[in-house]
């Protein structure tokens, strides 16, 4: 009887503590956010700040509805959002397809590392907006220059993370595969690539973050659509509620991308972080 009951009490205790602790942390975050919104509402309702500088939350929401249905500057919120997401999606796809092979080559091959490593390390620290003018001179002001800019911003983190992942592959796993008859190509496909996957996904996460902020900044400067353009043109006419709304949408998208990639990481590399 007691030997049956003992494990139950031992197991349930730490679990309850863990649940309570994670709940309370989440609740603190929720309370902080709602406190901020209440404060926002309060200062605008009392009239401490003029709506020109900070419109009340209700007005922003109302404007959001208006933007989503009828639109602003000839296009709806969805069209601006679609333009931005389309650019980053295209750039991300191109970057993933090209940066992963390049990263594997850098991590795996001495000569490829000698050629590519200095090139990437040279352009990586340059803020993308610093070479945007040159890209505009070369490729014009159309979609290509914006996609190329974000592509370059995303490429470096993914390539570097992939190379790191390839270099830190457990040598015992490589030897095990070799003694089971693996060829060079099979080693890459069956051991190196899956081993590097956690690092690759981290690179994609970092790249998307950099890419998103670069995109919005580029749209502020040179675009006729997109979230950055929407915020910029609204600011010129002092339509503050559209500005605030645009900033909130940009933040929400960045947050959603981060959460989505974390979920993807948990799904694709469940062994990562496990003792094995």
């Amino acid at each position, binding site marked *: 009887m007691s030997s049956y009951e003992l494990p139950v009490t031992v197991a349930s205790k730490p679990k309850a503590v863990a649940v309570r602790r994670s709940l309370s942390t989440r609740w603190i975050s929720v309370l902080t956010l709602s406190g901020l919104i209440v404060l926002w509402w309060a200062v605008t309702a009392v009239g401490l700040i003029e709506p020109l500088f900070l419109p009340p939350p209700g007005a922003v929401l109302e404007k959001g509805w208006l933007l989503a249905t009828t639109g602003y500057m000839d296009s709806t919120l969805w069209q601006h959002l679609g333009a931005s997401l389309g650019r980053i999606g295209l750039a991300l796809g191109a970057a993933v397809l090209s940066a992963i092979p390049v990263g594997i080559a850098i991590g795996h091959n001495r000569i490829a590392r000698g050629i590519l490593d200095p090139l990437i390390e040279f352009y990586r620290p340059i803020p993308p907006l610093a070479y945007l003018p040159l890209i505009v001179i070369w490729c014009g002001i159309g979609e290509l220059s914006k996609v190329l800019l974000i592509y370059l911003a995303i490429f470096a983190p993914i390539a570097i993370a992939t190379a790191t992942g390839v270099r830190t592959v*457990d040598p015992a796993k490589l030897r095990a595969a070799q003694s*089971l*008859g693996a*060829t060079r190509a099979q080693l890459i496909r069956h051991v190196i690539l899956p081993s590097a996957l956690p690092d690759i996904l981290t690179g994609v996460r970092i790249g998307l973050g950099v890419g998103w902020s670069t995109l919005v900044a580029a749209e502020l400067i040179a675009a006729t659509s997109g979230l950055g353009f929407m915020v910029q043109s609204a600011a010129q006419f002092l339509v503050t509620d559209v500005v605030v709304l645009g900033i909130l949408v940009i933040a929400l998208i960045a947050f959603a991308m981060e959460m989505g990639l974390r979920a993807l990481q948990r799904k694709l590399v469940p*062994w990562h972080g496990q003792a094995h």
Partner: protein
Amino acid sequence: MALLQLERISAQYPGAAEPVLADISLSLGPQQLLVALGPSGSGKTSLLNLIAGFVEPSAGRITLDGVPVKGPSAERGVVFQDDALLPWQDVLANVGFGLELAGVPRDQRERRAREMLALVDLAGFDTRRIWQLSGGQKQRVGLARALAADPRVLLMDEPFGALDAFTREQMQELLLQVWRRTAKPVFLITHDIEEAVFLATDLILLAPDPGQIVERLSLDFGQRYSAGESARAIKSDPRFIETREHVLARVFSQRSAARRQEFV
């Protein structure tokens, strides 16, 4: 009739002044379980890496069936100390990995993998993930994986070194059962004297600086286990204890000889 033959093998790390192994000759034939026993620094692991083809000897010749060994190959299966399994695949896919590399169709390799899992007492573990296994279970999967590829010889690199004492005893018995049923020649390295004496049909004792064979013994304790005697009865047999102490004394005499040389 020897299957695996090492003739006057020496090995040296690039840039090192002293060789790690000097003038090693040995052979491994069918029905043999050859154990290389030695303290750390005696070149056990280097010897296994040479046979596996991970490194090349600086002098001498290694042949399998008369053909010189060049690089790693599926003919020489290896079981590692740290399991070296692939955590992104389940147990069944890990065991069938060698067959997958060889292009064997899925249903065929899964059938073979299930047979091997049954052989190491892990039937029904097919869909388990690697990180859900205990240390002993991982080593069994590693053994099943090496056997599934049907190698000519099985090389084991301190396979039970990281396990607790209880699990180690179980794994030793399991290895003897598997070895008898598959009839694979096994080359195993260890620093556990009792393990070496219990498992080996042939025992070589290695001494360091540089790694060399100082004694060769033919033993039959493993065969007595296969014939039905219990492991504990064998290990507490006066003859077993005598052999164990003899080997222990040899290791220590080599060490003190080396230490005397340092003082001179």
